[in-house]
């Protein structure tokens, strides 16, 4: 699994779409003929992946929103996994 640069700017991959589904009470990631239902942590990360914020920004934002610290490794691991699956692409 590739290392994630904290200055990289993740964005939802081409052909994928993240949206809130009231019927499932969850964020889902839609892609050609398929769907992944995201848990709340995955959704918290993915919904901040706008191609503008860096991984470091996203970590800081989530830590601030949830009043916790020490999430950097978890976020990087998720981003790396999501990149492997093409859910996320890295800008720059």
């Amino acid at each position, binding site marked *: 699994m590739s290392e994630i640069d904290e200055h990289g700017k993740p964005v939802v991959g081409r*052909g994928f779409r993240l949206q809130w589904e009231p019927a*499932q009470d*969850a964020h889902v990631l839609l*892609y*050609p*003929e*398929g769907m*992944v239902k995201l848990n709340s942590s995955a959704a918290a990360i993915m919904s901040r992946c706008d191609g503008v914020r860096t991984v470091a920004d996203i970590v800081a934002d989530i830590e601030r929103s949830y009043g916790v610290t020490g999430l950097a490794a978890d976020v990087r691991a998720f981003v790396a996994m999501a990149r492997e699956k093409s859910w996320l692409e890295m800008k720059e």
Partner: protein
Amino acid sequence: MSDLEPPPGPDEAELPLVGEAPLANAARRPGPPLWLLMELTYRCPLHCVFCYNPTEFATSGPELATDDWLRVLREARALGAVQLGLSGGEPLARDDLEVIVAEAHSLGFYTNLITSGVGMTEPRIAALKRAGLDHIQLSFQDSSREMNDFLSSTRTFELKAKVAALIKQYEYPMVLNVVLHRHNLDHVQEILELAERIGAEYVELANTQYYGWAWLNRERLMPSREQLRRAEATLERFRAQPGQKMKIFFVVPDYFERRPKACMNGLGSVFLTVTPDGTALPCHAARMLPGLAFPNVRTESVRSIWYDSEAFNRFRGDDWMKEPCRSCPEKTRDFGGCRCQAYLLTGDPANADPVCDLSPHHHLVTEAVAAADAWESGRNQEGEKGLVFRDHRISIPVVVVGQEARSKRGAGI
């Protein structure tokens, strides 16, 4: 369309495996119809021998009007449907496809067009892009022009190659679907090379499932074990190549398995199909099931169809099951397999899918595979009978071309 399979996909990402679906199959209020398949028309310029459309499709009633489809979209979306398949027949044969896509997109559907490519032009793909179409799945019948054209009984290969270029030009993810059977299973290497050449990102190698026209042609399409083994070895070699980036899905033919597929994740669990005349089905092949009056969207709401109709409730939960399924611990995993296959092979849709080696009818499956093995070794003359091409003019059309098929295969095209 001939090639609509249960959604492809890797492990946990496959739609039927996520969300509430497995629980929804239990005997309680089902979850939403997450997957809506709208078969817009049975009209199709191709005549594929493995098409799953009903063989009597020509007797189907008039097609739904645009407004009917738009209403189906709104009602299904309100229930929580989110993946939309636009199929047929050839959906491009409907000149209101762009209107339907635009409404679906504005409602929040992820829109998938499942097409042979026939009818796609640059103005149309540009309009579909503007309307918000998310994805195009393009089918090829084989890697070579000769086999593509032969198996679909048309001359469409070069047109498809042009459509593939348009799909790339309009920045769609490129998903190529090829239905496999004995006449092209030995071409997996060439098919994958073609996929690479046209820039496919996903390739679905979907072994034929035997419904509709494919059922009629089963004896002439079933591959041998040896062919399957060769194809899988080719696939492994291809995947192992350095720099190989395509995601390749190989849908194993269930006749070669010992446990059935979790077909549709259980009928009435996540899938809702609406056929060209408005008939609602819990699976695109289910119209064949006896004793069920399938509701029609012209006269009933999608909500009442999904939650209240006898046709959608009949095979929910496990009360309908017989032995060996009823007491089987695996029933929560495979739901007894495919109801249509159970019906086609045993005459009773409540029986275990004979693919399961616990089924007392499993020999029907192994005998079909044995016949294919015998064909491979040249002993069985059944394979010489004609393939039946999907055709609207005749309900049981017979075009004797089996000999030609074999000689082409022998030539290694």
